[in-house]
């Protein structure tokens, strides 16, 4: 990656796959099988790849509807808190959630376009 290339968002580290990766890297560092620097590098590769793979490979869709309780836009990050949300999946299956938080960030590509 180039010198001042923007970093990727770390949003997906909190997903189950990101958490599992962190646990695995801890084990590898503790058992001296890799250096912490390599673990950091792996994690930043994860940030880049998970975003790309989710964008390219995931074809499933859903729509949802709910009451917008709170929203804010701070440091280029949108946050929406929705209540009583109904999700409609591709296969018409529906599910509900009392509270949903959506964190949305500008894609890096677009951000660059706007910044420069």
């Amino acid at each position, binding site marked *: 990656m180039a010198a001042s290339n923007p970093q990727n968002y*770390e949003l997906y580290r909190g997903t189950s796959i990101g958490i599992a990766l962190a646990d695995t890297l801890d084990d590898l560092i503790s058992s001296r099988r890799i250096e*912490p620097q390599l673990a950091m590098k792996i994690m*930043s590769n994860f940030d880049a790849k998970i975003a790309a793979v989710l964008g390219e490979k995931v074809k499933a869709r859903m729509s949802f509807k709910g009451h917008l309780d709170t929203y804010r836009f701070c440091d280029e990050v949108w946050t929406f808190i929705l209540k009583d949300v109904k999700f409609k999946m591709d296969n018409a299956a529906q599910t509900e959630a009392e509270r949903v938080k959506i964190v949305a960030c500008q894609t890096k590509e677009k951000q660059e376009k706007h910044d420069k």
Partner: protein
Amino acid sequence: MDSSSAGAAPPQTMDEVERLVQRLYQPGNPRVITQINDQLQRLQHSSEGWQIADALLNSQDANVRFFAALTFTVKLNNDGSMLDAETAQSVQSRLISWFVRLVSRGESALVTRKLCSTLTTYYLRSPVHWKRPLLHAALSLQSRDAASEPDPDASVNMANICKSLSMPQVVSLLWFAGTLADEVGRMENNTPAHARRHAQMEVIVEDASSLLRHAFSPVADEAGARLRAEALRCYITWVNYGQPVWPQKPDCLEYLRQLIPSAVQCLLDPELQRDALDSFRDILESYTTFFREEHMEVLASIISEHVQPVLLQALQDKDPEGLPYGQMVIAFGDANIQQVAEQPENINGSSTILKLLFDILRAPGYPGDEDELSIFSIEFWNTYIEYVNDMLFSKDADGADPPWFGYSRVVLSQLVELLWAKMSTPPADVAKQWTDAESDGFKEFRLDTTDLMLSIYVFLGKDMLQQLLVLTLRSLESRQWRAVEAGMFCLNKLADNVLEDQPSEDLLAMLFSSSLFRDVADFSQRIPLQARRTAIDLLGSYGRYIEHHAEYLPDTVRFLFASLETGPLTNAAAKSVASLCSTCRASLTGELDGFTQQYQRFLNGPTNEPYTKEKVIGAIAAIIQAIQPHSAKVQPLLALIQYVENDVQAAKDFTRAGDQEMAELMGVNALECLGSIGKGMQVPEDVPISIYDDDEPHVSKANFWDGDEGRMVQQRIIGCFSVLQVLGSSGEAIEAACQVLRSGFAETEPGPFVLPPAVTVSFLQQCAVNTPQLEAVLSTACILITQHSKSDSKRIGPDATAVCQQAASFIKQLGTPRNDPGVAASCIDVLCRLLPYYTAVLFDESSPLAPSLQTILDFSTQAIEGQDPFPKRSALDFWTRLIKPPTAPVQEQVLNRMRQVVTAYGPQLALALMRQVVGLAQRSDLDYVCEPLKALITHQPVTKAWLEAALLSDSLPPVSAAVGEREKYRFLQQIVGLRGDSRKTKEVVKEFYAACRGTVVSYGS
């Protein structure tokens, strides 16, 4: 044994080294090749590596010369930074000298490029600062030997030098310049040395731009074209380098910007056009601001004059060669969206672009099949509508529209029609020849397009609905069913938005009062299956409209029931029946008898399948739920239950006949249908409340299902569980039974499926520890206890005790959580649910659970110590609840017993928690571990002593040498001092955990 399989003896002379390298590149025994590779790697890393590399570059064999350049790179990477200035200067001189000699000898591209990479490695690794590598290399090429490095102040002109060089020399310089930009670009800017290399690029770019200007200069022969092709590649690499590194360095970027007019000429050269289109599209997509207004004007004019004719011809011929031309137009439009949207009078910059984008959609071919461009163009239109909607919402609500909005309405309206036309499904004979990828591509296009239409609807609103309705109905008149289907598909996806707008009601009448649904319901007409299927989906989606227009309802549902009996439509029909009956339940009560008869006919038909049965029986149940009074629900409900009982009986008969597979199929479906009836019978959330009914005493409603008739219905429901006697080993059956029980839990009023808690308890009691899906049963019991733990709900002490006894029995049988982590976690979850309202069940000395209490508590501490995350987290939650003061009134003796338990288990618990914190836990467990730790610190004054003893205990696992007694005490002071502060406690625990394990505190940047 032949020579190729002979082992690799260490070489003693240069000739032997050369032969060894040659053998490395020849096919042979993989084991021997590996040995040779190892030998050569040792040589590369040896102190003689420099001399070996230098000698091998003189070889006659290109492979050996390549290996020599590689050896220089390896040496530079490993030892380059440790060279003294004199040696570094000497290495530089040798490399430049070889570069000049090899280029003049007409060296192959492979070796020359490798040597360029070696020169770049020298630039990056050498302790001697190489200030003008390109100029130095050019001077050397000019003087035909390694020249001395140019003085920084000397006025040597790169452009003049280039004029004196031959074409291969310029090409090799372009390779060097490209490699330099590429490899320096990949280097992080995180050390002073690296920063210095990046800073030097600000000087080198001047030489690179002179070189590029020379290479781009027009020479109308084959050599000139090759030079420009190489120059274009090198140029793009420099632009890619400059984008992230020089956002604040306009002077540096200016060197590259000044080359745009020259580089753009490549777009006009037929030989270079494709590469140039890809390169410029790449910059337009990812680095729009690199181009200034004047550059965009040049690009617009090139698109208009040169790209347009080629693209139009390719679209007409369905020629895939048109792809890069179309992508260029799309990228240009995307990058200039404001101009495209707001300046319709700009011919090249707006109207030509929009015209071409319409032409892309107008072109023949199906997206996903031979039409790839339409798919790509959706991205542009998304940007377009996003821009228009942004403008729409950023203006004052009562302010005037921007003048260009009218034009946008025309553009978007035209777009809707083109998209609708493009969405038409292919005839069956075409679709049959499609591969899965083509078929998926077409489906994805339709979905992407409907997403786009949702955005366009925000702007066009009712006009767009009217347009789609007119297009659909006009196609209906001419019996163009594929066009009708495309229109219905769009309307279907817009349903949620359309139904929110009250004025749309009138427009929708155009559709629902047309002959459309009569036609599709007439199975004697030849209509494509897809059209009927989409019509069915449409009815499901517009349930809320049909609900308000009861005149359409019976025909609609009758059509759907009739479709149930048509094989390929069955599933779609069942889905829409379920959706429509649930939405319009109150309007359909008069049709119940007819629907029940149609259901009976459907059951006897060939399309009767588990999925459809479950959906349709649930739909009929929803209509029954709307019948008033409760007593009138009994007979139709019993009729549905009778269907389930028939299947239950059939399952038992199959078992008796030895056909367990069929028994399971019938039995599971019977329970799933029963669950679906239960779901259909749930009172909808948005049921209207009659203010007059409030005068009616609630008791009378509540009593109905407790009365004889109500009980009888419930007994029949419970009786269906008898199928488990023959399907006890089926996890699916157990799960389906749980769904039946849960369907009543969510209800706030009594109902047929609101069964007495004893039914759930008895179901749990019939389970053994090895019952499949026992977790689902325990989870159902958890929900039962939770439902009866609300402030206004009825307490079920004896039932909770019975549930807990059963969970305790499972715990005893498991012995340790490891034996079945899933069941262990579920059992502990049951215990968690007892707090605070059923605390006495566990802690009252007179409780039947009292003798098992120690086993339960030991089991939960074992779960904390175990490796399985779920029991661990459940146990941590259990102890947190136990340590914290109860949130509901608890009898004094029970409270005392809880305190005694915490005091007795405190040291053991503190040790278990500290063992987790110093390394046994995974990082992902730490937040859960912190909870009981915070609770202990906040509510138990002796916690500090317990934690101190735990931290100094021999039972702790080995920790990193960096953590000694001092660090442990510091951690103790910190953690206790924080007094249960949630965020800081987690931070401190995470830091101590990382120190103990020798890992990083955080992976964050």
